[in-house]
């Protein structure tokens, strides 16, 4: 398999993949260009690919006529609450990776079992539980059900198991407490997995739709996703506005993803998916 013999094949595959990539991402291109068109042009026959007179009017309307400013703030709050879950998962991963204690096996199995439960089963009971706790229609209630995922705990455990025990022992000999050891030694060493989990947590919180839809009943608790779904009920009215709203949701995620792409692919390799 010399490079010379491979060359034509690589070029052909590359060309095919480029066509596929363009087709896959075309809906996004269409979304962004349509969001910049005036409403009449978005409905024009035949359609135009690039807007003839691009404007940001639709984006302005999202924030002035509609309440997208508040939705944006709510979404950011939900994402930030997700950070608490991130810390809880890291702690649990550390606990399972680096301590031996009674019931460890059973408890870890319990964690893994939660992965088999489909969301449709938990939907109604979770609503009832949050209702009992008076957390319905609060942003904490919106974030709570997805705060911790067994998958996250599993990934943290896998990673932290590779931290040498000697390092932890050395810290303890130096008089560091358990919490301090975790904070000063374990977390800094776990940066790669923290990065993966932080990105996944951000994406999940930003995109989450079902729980906000069920839990948030007042408009002022809506997240971007729920606000956007309200626009969906007006499909014939204004595609420009809808595409502007979609762009507002999708573009930040794309930016985050492109910045951290390397870590995400690594994360899947690290989790031992071979």
């Amino acid at each position, binding site marked *: 398999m010399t490079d010379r013999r491979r060359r034509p094949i690589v070029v052909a595959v590359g060309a095919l*993949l*480029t066509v596929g990539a363009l087709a896959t991402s075309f*809906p*996004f291109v269409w979304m962004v260009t349509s969001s910049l068109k005036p409403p009449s042009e*978005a409905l*024009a026959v035949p359609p135009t690919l690039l807007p003839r007179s691009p404007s940001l009017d639709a984006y302005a309307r999202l924030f002035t006529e509609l309440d997208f400013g508040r939705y944006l703030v709510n979404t950011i709050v939900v994402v930030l609450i997700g950070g608490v879950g991130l810390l809880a998962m890291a*702690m*649990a991963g550390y606990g399972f990776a*680096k*301590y*031996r*204690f009674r019931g*460890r*096996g*059973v408890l870890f199995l319990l*964690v*893994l079992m*939660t*992965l*088999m*439960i*489909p*969301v*449709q*089963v*938990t939907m*109604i*009971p*979770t609503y*009832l*539980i949050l*209702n009992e706790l008076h957390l319905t229609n609060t942003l904490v209630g919106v974030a*709570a*059900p*997805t705060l911790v995922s*067994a*998958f*996250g705990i*599993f*990934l943290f455990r896998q990673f932290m198991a590779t931290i040498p*025990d000697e390092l932890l022992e050395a810290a*303890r000999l130096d008089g560091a407490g358990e919490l301090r050891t975790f904070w000063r030694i374990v977390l800094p060493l776990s940066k790669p997995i923290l990065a993966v989990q932080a990105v996944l*947590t951000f*994406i*999940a919180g930003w*995109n989450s*739709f*079902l729980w906000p839809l069920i839990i948030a009943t007042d408009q002022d608790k809506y997240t971007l996703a*729920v606000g*956007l779904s309200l626009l*969906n009920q007006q*499909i014939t009215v204004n595609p420009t506005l809808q*595409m502007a709203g979609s762009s507002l949701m999708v573009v930040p*995620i*794309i930016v985050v*993803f492109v910045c951290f792409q390397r870590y*995400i692919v690594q994360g*899947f390799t690290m989790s031992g*998916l*071979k």
Partner: protein
Amino acid sequence: MTHDGGAGGSRLGGTAVLVGARDDAPMSDRSRRSARRRAPGSAPARGPGRRRASVVPYAFIAPALILLTMFGLLPILVAAGVSLTDLDIGGLGNPETIRFIGLANYERLFADPEFWQALRTTGFFVVVGVPVIIAVSLAIAVALNTSQSRFFRALRAFYFLPAITAIVAVALIWGYLYNSQFGLLNQLLAQVGLGPVGWLSDPTTARLSVALVAVWRATGLNTIIFLAALQSVPKEYHEAAALDGAGRWTTFWRVTFPLLRFALFFVTVTTLIGWLQFFDEPYVLTRGGPVGATTSMSLFIFQKGFSLNQFGYASAGSLVLFAIIAVVTAIQLRMRSTDD
């Protein structure tokens, strides 16, 4: 196919861990047994947790475990209990009015033609969707793996984008493309003198349109999993095969493909579960219509539970779905263990 961005990851992990759990269980059993042999209260001698092992580890795992119990394990029990009652919106405010009705919800469920239609619809999505997603994502992964150049690595991101896009945005974008009057697809068809096609209004077409969006969204994640597996195949294997005079095609099927067994198994299990739980795309694109053609099991449960507020009835449906998923997953795990 997931209900939101995060579930993709967690469901994905679901089976990875499922598989891992089988390997893990004997080990943890052993460690528990060895712990029991020592005097009660004393920590095992190995590991850094030797000193002060009493409460520290429990304190570390407690926050996460409490949350998981509250939103994972407890709900299953609640659902089982609720499925035996006639709980509805009135019962929420007035717990005294809730009646225990035994298995009546299940009897009603099995006599409900809507339930059977939802089951058949889900079956259709599984049969069509699983092979398509596996074939497409494997093909893309193999293609992406032909070269390690910067260009090829940049292309990966394009295929992954749909997987991280919010479902609501997906619905709006595709709803606009599919729109029968001014949607781009029908406009393009009109240019060549075809159509208009009722992408989301004709029952059969709507199923395929909805499935297409699901395939578009699910391919990226599976492609990455296959890609990670492909990259872990040692180069020497390919060189050895080439030295033996094996062609590219033979090398792939005889050397690479067998090494992808675990990834393939993993993707099959998660994709199958994903289609069994199929919810997002029909919910946002068609609300299960037209005439129930795209109402999957999950959507059926959601409609009964949250649109009609029949929590008891919907809980019964959700437990049946859970049972189906558990059985299908168990069968696949069994098949894998006999396979090895």
